[in-house]
């Protein structure tokens, strides 16, 4: 059943990325370009995504386990460390350079296969480098 939910949630997530045009790197860069012709779309996407997401977190607080699993698999660390901040900083630079973050990058493999493939291969390579340097899962 968890896999069935994964498929449904994945479909809905992909539909959301396309409806909101977050699969368009120019739309994303136009949001990030605060000194240019600013496009508020990404802010609207995040705010409206937070409504059902926050609601779900409120429901989660009153439940001891999810419907199809024995327990919630949710990060518990509250420590803001160098890895978190430097990782976020590097990610932001790459995101700004190309206008793609991981979700839209995978979606664009279907919509604009080339040159998206170059970015996705490099992204997976970047993840592989991290895995090589940190053999123990974080």
């Amino acid at each position, binding site marked *: 059943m968890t*896999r069935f939910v994964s498929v449904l*949630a994945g479909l809905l997530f992909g539909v959301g990325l396309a409806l909101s045009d977050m699969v368009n790197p120019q739309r994303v860069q136009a949001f990030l370009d605060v*000194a240019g012709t600013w496009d508020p779309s990404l802010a609207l996407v995040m705010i409206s995504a937070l409504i059902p997401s926050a609601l779900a977190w409120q429901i989660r607080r009153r439940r001891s386990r999810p419907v199809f699993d024995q327990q919630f698999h949710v990060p518990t660390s509250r420590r803001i460390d160098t890895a978190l901040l430097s990782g976020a900083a590097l*990610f*932001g630079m790459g*995101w700004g350079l190309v206008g793609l973050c991981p979700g839209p990058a995978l979606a664009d493999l279907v919509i604009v296969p080339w040159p998206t493939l170059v970015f996705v291969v490099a992204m997976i390579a*970047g993840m592989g480098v991290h895995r090589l340097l940190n053999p123990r899962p974080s």
Partner: protein
Amino acid sequence: MIATLAHLPWYWPVLGGLCIGTAAGMLLLFNGRILGVSGMAAASLGWADGHDRTANRLFLVASMAGAGLTYLMLHRPAIGPTANMAVLIVGGLLVGYGTRLGSGCTSGHGVCGLARLSPRSIAATGVFMCTAAITVYVVRHILGYTS
């Protein structure tokens, strides 16, 4: 080099955001999992232990199918990344390495983390939003590359 970005009526991002947030809520309440694409991508390759690799792969493939089908129905022009090869490679490496080092991306930290008011996610989202905006500023307004 590229035509002016078409105006997008407000209801598309709002509708899309509601879909994305609902997907995150479903994954949490039914499967007990965070919707974080960078983590799911790593898990689907076996680079994050303790996850159901198949479930993660199914999610990612379904998201690609959902986005592709929706795009077909919307009849919008398909606009991909416009950066050159070198920038695509550098950007991809930064996104891949950075999201793993920082334990998340726009979905995991931005949508799920902010929704649960995780201090780590609030910090990470603030940082990646800032470095992304600074990068775009430097590329477009200081180096003068416009797209």
